[in-house]
């Protein structure tokens, strides 16, 4: 019953956010700030995540496919396809659930318990339009951009790891990557990141917006935001794979 209540409250927040999304002048500045914080500020950690995912996958694939009957280009095909279709989106999103989700929940939660949200409302602002809408919109827009970053650094990491370890020459890796590349993989990755961006930012904003009970309450809302976001990303990943592949 409690879970149903939470779903209802979350849906109501989304409905109010959607209704107030036309008040662009209220959240314009905040929207651009959030694009920088969610997108630009996350580039280093996403590059690092992508790079090491690609590197490790290449070395492990080379170890497992160490056979005279399997061409080396297969490693490039497996690694690049895995990165584009799954890992760049999912691993990046799990990292972003921690980085972005935790920040959003803490920020809004602190504003709630220190009455800053009440102050906004009392001045005549629509606090949902002012706080939730720009964060969700910025997330939905910037997550696909981060997917591109993760994909490039992931494949790049794979090429570099193959070269440095001597497992796969760059030419073989890239030949394999090109051979099995399907543009739909990229579209699928973008769709995933669009959905994951929405899930992470909306759940985190919801948890923060309705935080209560001081520092402990903010801590709980941050934990819930991160855990729920990760769970929902994994669930959505499964649903999207089942529906779109």
């Amino acid at each position, binding site marked *: 019953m409690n879970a149903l209540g939470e779903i209802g409250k979350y849906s109501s927040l989304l409905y109010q956010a959607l209704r107030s999304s036309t008040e662009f002048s209220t959240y314009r500045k905040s929207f651009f700030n959030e694009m920088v914080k969610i997108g630009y500020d996350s580039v280093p950690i996403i590059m690092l995540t992508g790079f090491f995912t690609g590197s490790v996958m290449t070395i492990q694939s080379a170890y497992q496919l160490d056979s005279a009957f399997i061409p080396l280009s297969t490693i490039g095909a497996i690694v690049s396809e895995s990165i584009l279709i799954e890992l760049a989106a999912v691993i990046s999103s799990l990292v972003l659930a921690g980085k972005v989700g935790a920040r959003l929940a803490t920020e809004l939660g602190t504003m709630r318990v*220190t009455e800053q949200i009440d102050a906004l409302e009392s*001045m*005549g602002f*629509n606090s949902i339009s002012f706080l939730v809408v720009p964060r969700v919109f910025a997330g939905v827009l910037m997550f696909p951009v981060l997917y591109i970053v993760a994909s490039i650094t992931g494949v790049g990491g794979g090429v570099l790891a193959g070269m440095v370890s001597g497992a796969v020459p760059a030419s073989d890796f890239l030949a394999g990557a090109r051979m099995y590349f399907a543009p739909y993989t990229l579209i699928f990755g973008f769709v995933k990141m669009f959905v994951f961006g929405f899930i992470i930012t909306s759940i985190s904003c919801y948890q923060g917006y309705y935080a209560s009970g001081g520092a402990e309450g903010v801590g709980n809302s941050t934990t819930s935001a991160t855990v729920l976001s990760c769970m929902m990303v994994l669930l959505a990943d499964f649903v999207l794979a089942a529906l779109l592949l």
Partner: protein
Amino acid sequence: MIEINNLTKSFGDLLIWEDVNFQIDDGETIAIIGRSGCGKSVLLKHINALLSPDSGSVIIDGNNIYDMDYVSQRKLRQKFGILFQGSALFDSINTFENIAFPLRFFSDQSEEEIRGNVMDALKMVNLESAHDKETSELSGGMRKRVGLARAIILKPKYIMYDEPTSGLDPQTSNEINELIIRMADSLDVTSIVVTHDMHSVLNIADKVAFLDEQKLSWHGTVDDLIKSEQDSLKSFVTASEYQINSTR
């Protein structure tokens, strides 16, 4: 004028108060007093519909705020300035920007006019020199004054104060009390002050509403309060006097 009619509020099974009725006339200063946890701040947040009651109405200048749609409620809220208990300053922007914040969104003023109005508001609360300070650099008393400057920047008709002197030393408390009186006189506003500080009440209020045992237990002028023989009110006032005397 604000009329509070048969207001009842519960959080789940917990009844906060029921059938609260009183009226706040234009230009007067009313203090809402009562023990900690009796629902004074909750009542304050019902007056401008930051919270909704289980039943009852709040009529502001002839309009029931709970019958309005959200857009109209937001417009009506601009008639109110609120000084929150913890000041509720936005910590991502500095003092000047905190005060200028409502002006930037709800007025057509030029940057120069905004600057002039913000400095005037800071002057009213004797804090002109703090305009460029970060909110984290402000003391408790300064935060209250910045909060008050922000509350008056849209020239409200009503100012609500939520525990304006809590957590402050006696000297700073007196300064805040003087500011409340000055605001009421110079801006010709109606003031609603939530407090359990009887020293403040006696200094600033024209009328008093006493919340006790989940209802409005007593309502009247400050003169009547001093003469009142009602047990719970007397006990509350006596406890406050004892506290004041014991600190001397």
